């Protein structure tokens, strides 16, 4: 069942596959799913793997199960209000509910959301609490802070599938999903229309049943449109808001981890002292610390906006990972050395620079654009020396890759170094490349 589901969710760049279906099936068998609200919760647990996926997930869910299309920058309420599913649901409301003068559109949408996100647990709670509810005066709202909010909202029609057999339930859900795709009939089948409320006869149904506010609908509403729950555009140039994504990519730089190994020397020494009784001694394998060398082109206005964000990025990394970070500067290209300070007063010869440990990861940051005569043979040789010395070395370029071919010097430097755009994605690729380079020397 739901064979088309993985395909549909993949369109929203979510990882859904056969395993998703198997888990969904298992959830059905274990009785986790009886309502649409349950499906929302279960699928979310299975599919969503990062807060950035919650937004796309909610969008995909509303599209697949209710045929409600949420446009970019649109909030959930508006999307619902113009959907067929909602209109049909409204049509199916009985007159009493519809002409209740307290209800305005927002109340209807709240109610609709409540029904969409109604879970088995809500139903169980209502059934268990039946007596309490009957005796409970609905006008008394503030007696219990737990159910305080939402206490005005009730569900009159509750889709209770608990009497159905598993097979029947599945068949029905499948059928509805199909119908919704082909006939654009809206989602009311899911919610309400099939519902044979356990309160169908008798007093409680008239007044409706109070929902405790599982918050599913509320959460979905909060999620839609909140940038915190959507993926970062990894192809954008490095800025403050995608800093974290870039940081995540930077963390991919491989570090050797600590291992305990047999200390052969000490074992033999001590064993001889003990007269031939060899007790093994262990020692920690020294772990290679991450060392980063940052060479920044800070000359000229073209580079100015990037210098700061890059420094911030690497210093952020430093606070989270204790490591050795060196930052040096140059202007356009290097002639025999680099500068130790941003003002470019303290010169450091290239000879001194290449005396550094060869395990440094070197990031060169610059636009690589200059007059061809500036990048003369000497300067090119200097770059090549660096390349020879440091195996883990990449160039990050803030200029869009499309433009690289228009500048001669960029092409030349691009031949010496692997060059990547200064975007979270570019950094990610650079780090991958760097790890490969590291492997080769080992």
């Amino acid at each position: 069942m739901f064979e088309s589901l993985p395909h549909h969710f993949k369109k929203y760049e979510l990882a859904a596959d056969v395993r998703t279906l198997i888990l969904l099936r298992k959830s059905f068998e274990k009785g986790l799913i009886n309502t649409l609200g349950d499906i929302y919760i279960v699928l979310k647990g299975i599919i969503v793997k990062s807060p950035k996926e919650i937004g796309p997930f909610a969008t995909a869910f509303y599209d697949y199960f209710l045929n409600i299309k949420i446009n970019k920058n649109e909030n959930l309420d508006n999307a619902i209000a113009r959907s067929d599913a909602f209109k049909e649901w409204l049509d199916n409301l009985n007159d009493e509910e519809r002409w209740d003068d307290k209800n305005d559109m927002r109340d209807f949408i709240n109610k609709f959301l409540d029904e969409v996100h109604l879970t088995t647990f809500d139903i169980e709670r209502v059934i268990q609490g039946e007596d309490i509810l009957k005796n409970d005066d609905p006008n008394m709202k503030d007696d219990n802070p737990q159910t305080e909010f939402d206490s005005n909202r009730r569900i009159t029609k509750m889709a209770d599938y608990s009497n159905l057999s598993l097979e029947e339930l599945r068949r029905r859900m499948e059928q509805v999903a199909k119908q919704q795709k082909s006939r654009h009939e809206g989602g009311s089948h899911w919610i309400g229309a099939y519902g044979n409320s356990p309160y169908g006869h008798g007093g409680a149904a008239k007044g409706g049943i109070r929902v405790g506010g599982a918050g599913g609908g509320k959460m979905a509403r909060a999620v839609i449109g909140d940038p915190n729950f959507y993926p970062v555009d990894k192809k954008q140039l490095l800025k403050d808001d995608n800093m974290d994504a870039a940081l995540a990519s930077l963390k991919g730089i491989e570090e050797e981890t600590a291992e305990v190994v047999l200390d052969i020397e000490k074992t033999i020494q001590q064993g001889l002292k003990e007269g031939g009784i060899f007790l093994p001694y262990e020692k920690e394998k020294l772990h290679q610390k991450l060392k980063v060398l940052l060479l920044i082109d800070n000359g000229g206005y073209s580079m100015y906006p990037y210098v700061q964000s890059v420094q911030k990025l690497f210093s952020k990394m430093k606070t989270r990972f204790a490591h050795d970070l060196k930052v040096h500067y140059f202007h356009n290209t290097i002639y025999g050395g680099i500068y130790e300070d941003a003002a470019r007063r303290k010169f450091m010869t290239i000879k001194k620079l290449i005396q550094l440990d060869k395990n440094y990861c070197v990031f060169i940051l610059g636009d690589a654009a200059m007059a061809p005569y500036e990048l003369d043979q000497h300067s090119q040789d200097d770059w090549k020396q660096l390349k020879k010395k440091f195996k883990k070395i990449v160039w990050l370029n803030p200029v869009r890759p499309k433009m690289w071919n228009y500048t001669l010097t960029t092409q030349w430097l691009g031949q010496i170094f692997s060059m990547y755009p200064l975007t979270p994605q570019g950094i990610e690729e650079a780090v991958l490349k760097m790890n490969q380079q590291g492997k080769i020397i080992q």
Partner: protein
Amino acid sequence: MAHTEMWLGSEKYLCDMELAHAFHMARVLGMPLLIEGEPGTGKTELPLQYAKDSNLELFVYPVGSKSTVEQFVAKFDHVKYLRDSQIEVLNAQREEKGLEKKLSTGGRSTENLDDYVLMGPAAKAYSNDHSVLLIDEIDKAPREFPNDLLYALSHRKFVMPESGKVIETSEEKMPAIVITSNREQELPTAFKGRCIYHYIAFPPPETMREIIFKHFPKINDQLLEKSITIFYQLRHLGLERAPSTRELLNWLKYVNYFKPKDAIQKVEKLEGIGALIKTQMDLERIKRKFNK
């Protein structure tokens, strides 16, 4: 699992509905629950409080940068084993020489390899039915750790090193496994795929009020409102390190020592703000902002 009823939190712990659902689902499906979220939002508290509230045995594995699956599951103590076997040789030699006194192996026998297996929290949790296993801060682990762990967890079965003893559990009796992460490192996709995922969003003021009530049932209303307002103001300043729930509770713990009237004043004057703000830059920024 037998313990599959929904758990909604305890007196001290407010389990938000979404989290409760995810935790429930993980237990029903017999999968680990992976919780991510800002520090101080109660990720670690969930299994601790659940175990306490439901009277279940709890096993904790705090992950560090040197964690290995061996520590987590079980390790064979080669050093002890070698020592004991050499002691046996020594004892035999002593016997030959006619010496009475023997060296002790502390009750261990080299014949019985199980004596030298040091069980880690995972093996212990799997040998106790219906326990709770917490793997805390997995993002601190070396990169290969989550994948190794995955293999160990997905088989519901551990083979003890050297001794070959098998520790096995059934889907009904397996421990409720909770894994927490602060997102300092992206976890492998395959690993996440085997877990039920939940992200704890930062609680809105209404929820925060309930959380505070759980900890300070008798708190003064005005004090509560004031501190919540200030807390969310601080959070919206875009500080380098935004204060979290845990820190708000600590701050309230401090001001709550005083009489309500004094306490409100203290809150207004941002006294004891060190409980909330942890970097010098942020502190200076707040001072400028609030003109104090």
